[in-house]
């Protein structure tokens, strides 16, 4: 599917911001996409070695939409990813070693073994945080949360923008509707990206919505909407960058729909029995975002193959080093599970039947004169 030239808010043609990027930045986009794919391939290997202790979620075939969109943000902006936005996390500053430790449930992972995969975050003041906020599993929930994050930007007069990803499935949730509607009414500087990858777990988009396209929902919310080819990284960048600029300029919520395709199952266990024969193979052969971008770089931009090989080698080296470091890390101490539910009290106490519990008050306390059986035979 070829990218159609996109149009700005007033219908006027505009310069293509992706194609206008200098070559070194175009190569950065390639680096992030390649890093995403290689890191996921490494995770598959670790999963098969049972070193990934939970599920594994791939974004194979969706690297362009994650990387190209997040690349349009500034350091001070805040992004909330979906499970298939590893690429966006990496662009925003999450490191391969952090991701590996999360999947491997290590004690020094960003969440100290409490959460999995890319469910972690680093948000706060501009310049003091990397600006990403991990999703939670109930889908759509991050839309209201990001409405609030961007509401705080507006209240404080901060020049910052928020970007939140949802899938085609999450648009069916109440949280999506409530979040985008509230943000629209408040004119929050929020970009909402609907990644239409064809499936929510096993459910095709035809069973998710009767709308012809997800971007049509923009009209109902009174927000700007645009649709683009999610497997064309430069088109994704172009579309998102213009949306980010509009949000930053005070034009409120932006709803973008990226057309892409999920080539792996919901998670690694999913055998995709529900996918029509040949569909995956067709997307892999004809519409792989990395293959497509390589053609752009090599054929149109006249990048030397050696420059690509150099990036590929650097990515493998970085993933190797990160894997070694993650493998060296230990697992959490069981008692660490009790720390940090509240700011105050900072920790829970172990229950009485667990080692380390304070049992001084339990079962031994007797009211005066209360008759008890004495093991020595007396009363």
């Amino acid at each position, binding site marked *: 599917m070829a990218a159609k030239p996109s149009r700005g808010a007033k219908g006027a043609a505009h310069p293509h911001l992706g194609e206008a990027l200098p070559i070194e930045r175009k190569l950065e986009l390639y680096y992030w996409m390649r890093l995403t794919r290689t890191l996921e391939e490494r995770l598959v290997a670790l999963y098969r070695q049972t070193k990934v202790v939970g599920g594994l979620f791939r974004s194979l075939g969706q690297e362009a939409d994650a990387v190209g969109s997040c690349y349009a943000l500034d350091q001070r902006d805040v992004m909330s990813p979906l499970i298939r936005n590893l690429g966006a996390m990496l662009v925003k500053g999450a490191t391969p070693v952090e991701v590996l430790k999360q999947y491997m449930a290590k004690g020094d992972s960003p969440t100290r073994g409490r959460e999995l995969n890319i469910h972690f975050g680093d948000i*706060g003041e501009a310049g003091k945080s990397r600006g990403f906020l991990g999703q*939670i599993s*109930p889908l759509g929930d991050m*839309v209201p949360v990001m409405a609030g994050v961007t509401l705080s*930007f507006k209240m404080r007069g901060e020049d910052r923008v928020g970007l939140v990803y949802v899938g085609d499935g999450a648009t069916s949730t109440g949280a999506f509707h*409530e979040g985008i509607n509230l943000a629209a009414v408040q004119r929050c500087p929020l970009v909402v990206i609907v990644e239409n990858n064809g499936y929510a777990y096993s459910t095709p988009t035809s069973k998710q919505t009767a709308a012809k396209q997800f971007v049509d929902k923009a009209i109902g919310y009174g927000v700007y909407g645009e649709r683009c080819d999610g497997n064309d990284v430069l088109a994704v960048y172009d579309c998102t960058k213009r949306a980010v600029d509009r949000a930053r300029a005070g034009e409120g919520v932006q709803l973008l729909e990226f057309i892409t395709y999920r080539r792996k199952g919901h998670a690694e266990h999913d055998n995709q029995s529900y996918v029509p024969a040949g569909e995956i193979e067709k997307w892999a052969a004809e519409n792989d975002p990395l293959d497509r971008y390589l053609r752009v770089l090599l054929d149109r931009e006249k990048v030397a193959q050696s420059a690509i090989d150099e990036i590929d080698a650097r990515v493998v080296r970085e993933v190797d080093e990160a894997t070694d470091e993650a493998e060296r890390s230990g697992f959490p101490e069981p008692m660490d599970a009790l720390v940090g539910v509240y700011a105050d009290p900072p920790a829970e106490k172990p229950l009485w039947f667990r080692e380390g519990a304070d049992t001084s008050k339990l079962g031994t*306390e007797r009211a005066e004169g209360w008759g008890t059986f004495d093991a020595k035979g007396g009363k």
Partner: protein
Amino acid sequence: MAEITYLEAIREALDEEMARDPNVFLIGEDIGVFGGAFKVTDGLVKKYGEGRVIDSPISEAGIVGAAAGAAHMGMRPVVEMQFIDFIANAYDMLTNYIATARYRAFLPTPMVVRGPSGGYVRGGPFHSQNPEAGFIHTPGLKVVYPATAEDAKGLMKAAIRDDDCVLFFEHKYLYRRIKGTMPAGDHVVPIGKARTAREGGDVSIITYAATVHKSLEAAERLAAEGIDVEVIDLRSLAPLDDEAIFNTVRKTNRVLIVHEDTRTGGIAGELTARINESCFAYLDAPVLRVTAHDIPLPYAPQLEDFVLPQVDDIVTAVRRLVAW
């Protein structure tokens, strides 16, 4: 100082905290120009502007979620549920998102969700509920439910200053019936501490919210029969003040738990278990409960009064404990 109502005490706390900390803001349905369904926020939009007293769409999940996002960024939002019954619409946001945020991702979420709760007001099934038990069951949330005007103010100030999410239940039966004189200065009541509403030596009633007043009325009647009742007002339901609970059990050895919430899965069950685990040997009688029936709260006075705990029920239960 003049007496003010329970409702005015809440407003005073909101006003003082908004004046003290520019990060505090209010968001809710009809809370601005209209001042809220019960007028708790009356006048605050005039004083602080629409930027800090935000009239929201009808969108409980939306505003609770947005409050969480703003709280992550260092704001201190106070969300109004027009009636606390509607908090069910934000249950996912509160239990899955907010309650877990600090633990799973080191995300501070200092925010308050407040709203008019409870029955005895002929509100019918959707304007009378006491949904606190479901939230107490969720690690990561704090829950308070004041019975006096002084506590309403002091606990609201503590809730806004707390670094975690506090659910602040306000009893609408008490809004304008109960008055109090506010202590001078910065009046903050710590979360997690119960209050002895009445000292006594024969029987302990452990309760909270509107039934504190029902229990005090019962205690007066029982005093005429020579039964000396102690009434403990929990004030905080999460965390519970175990020390205060166990102390009164050790003192009187007879315990009645009273709550307006329905019986099965209500807080009385949790309190009974804790007393059983820690103070079994101090009990001279089984722990008894006076609660609402397990019935959605009906509208007609004859029906509502039958379903909810009344002073007569408390008197009957205390007599049974004494006679055990």
